[in-house]
């Protein structure tokens, strides 16, 4: 296991896309400490900001308030990162496999355009969670993001595959322009959810304010949700039995787009 403890909180955002377990796996402690990070517009060494202990492992533990440390785990292909503290923007963006666990909050664009692996945020997440960067054709494409707190705007926007589950509330435009995949929100769903969605699924546990371009279909028990909820439970998300066995109101949309998307709203009656 490799431990990185923040010793100097950067006064400017620190671009640290070298903090990846697959990069560290073959490196010694000294080599890790020399890896470059971008502090503002200046290249520095990782060791300038972190106390590094251990080497040659794909198990990485980060300690400290890393809200200013961006791009942790970006593009990682294997290994595990555990962060005891907050994480900065772009956490795990574009990651392909492996796991990131944050015992704190994560900044904007966590898991953006990821195509595999798992991110579990025990605090809140920012905007663009699992989403697509401006100009991109799709956001998250496989993998799983779990958030125990709230998430910001554009959660899961342009998502193509994968699963995003948020225990708390999400902001506006959740699941906007979704191509496929599943977004589950146990708290409140912000306005304009599913705007422009082609396919894919949004599941809400509180009645959202839906766009007029979504039409009500029926009340039924979508069986596949059982599998999704079972998966979440295996990942440590507490799931009520009624959510698994209960009925959901199904709305089709967005009729402004392809209209093959769906929003399920848990039917408490």
């Amino acid at each position, binding site marked *: 296991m490799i431990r990185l403890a923040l010793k100097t909180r950067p006064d400017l955002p620190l671009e640290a896309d070298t903090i990846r377990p697959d990069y560290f796996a073959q490196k010694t402690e000294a080599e890790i400490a020399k890896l470059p990070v971008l502090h503002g517009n200046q290249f520095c060494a990782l060791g300038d900001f972190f106390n590094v202990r251990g080497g040659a492992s794909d198990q990485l533990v980060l300690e400290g308030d890393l809200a200013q440390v961006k791009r942790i785990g970006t593009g990682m292909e294997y290994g595990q990162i555990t962060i005891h503290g907050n994480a900065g923007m772009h956490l795990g963006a574009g990651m392909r496999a492996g796991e990131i666990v944050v015992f704190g909050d994560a900044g904007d664009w966590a898991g953006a355009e990821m195509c595999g692996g798992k991110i579990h945020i025990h605090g809140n997440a920012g905007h663009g969670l699992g989403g697509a960067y401006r100009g991109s054709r799709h956001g998250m494409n*496989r993998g799983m993001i779990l958030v125990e707190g709230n998430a910001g705007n554009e959660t899961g926007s342009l998502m193509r*595959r*994968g*699963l995003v589950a948020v225990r708390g509330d999400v902001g506006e435009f959740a699941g906007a322009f979704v191509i*496929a995949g*599943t977004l589950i929100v146990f708290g409140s769903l912000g306005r304009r959810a599913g705007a422009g969605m082609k*396919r894919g*699924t949004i599941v809400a546990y509180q009645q959202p304010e839906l766009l007029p371009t979504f039409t009500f279909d029926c009340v*039924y*028990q*979508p*069986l*596949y949700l*059982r*599998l*999704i909820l*079972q*998966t979440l439970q295996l990942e440590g998300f507490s799931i009520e039995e009624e959510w*698994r066995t209960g009925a959901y109101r199904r709305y089709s949309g967005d009729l402004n787009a392809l209209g*093959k998307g*769906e929003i399920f709203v848990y039917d408490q009656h």
Partner: protein
Amino acid sequence: MMLTINGVEIEDTYAEAFTMWGARIIITAKNLKWAMEAATRMTGFATSVIGCKCEAGIEGEIDDTPDGRPGTSVLLFARSKEDLAQRLVERVGQCVMTCTTTACFNGLDSVEQVPVGGQLRYFGDGFQMSKLIQNRRFWRIPTMDGEFLVEDKFGVQPAVAGGNILILGEDQDVTLQAAEQAVEAMRKVRGVILPFPGGIARSGSKVGSKYKFLMASTNDAFCPTLRGVVDSAVPEGVNCVLEIVIVGLEIEDVEQATRVGTLAACLPGIRRITSGNYGGKLGQYKIYLHQVMKQDVSA
């Protein structure tokens, strides 16, 4: 060497088994009644590849199903991987998808896979949706009661068909009783099915016929009514023979079923238990009765 169990002679011979391809299908439904209904339909007309293109049976009820609902496990076997793929699509499509409240999952972890949901999805006429959950793809096909959930691909593997025991008894009552007890014991073995009605075959067959258009015909050597006119394998005092055919995913499972079935069938009034073979010319496996019976039953 003579081997007897409870006074029943176990003939020193072997069952000749051969390779087929097998799949395990998990069917779930709102309750066990409907899961069993689908499983029963799916395994209908599937006693022998000779006439039915596949062999199938219900492996048993299962508690731990993918969607947490009541479920059953079905084993389906066919001559080749391609044949099996076709039979799966036909039978899941016609017998499971049509059965209300059901869902259908792959139950075999294998590198060899064939598309099932991936073929049936077209029934959705463009309204089908796929979901990738934990690297397994599922298809949701809209139906009039909601939707049919079916896994995209099913695992298939080489399997063993043609395991068998023949129970030779003094009369029909005792032979049937012995066969029923054997079936009851064999059905507790996971990974095997007994594809014939009630697990028992009365019309055992031999390869070929005097009629050129027939691939198989009655096993005259074991027909008590022909004892006086053919080269009979029916000893004096035997008036009924029943066969139990065993098909399994692994040879060990077929051997285990052979063992427990033979033990259970050794009742008073049973004269001999033997196995059918084709002189070793057809099958890839030989299941020697004496060897199987000497193995540890609990193994």
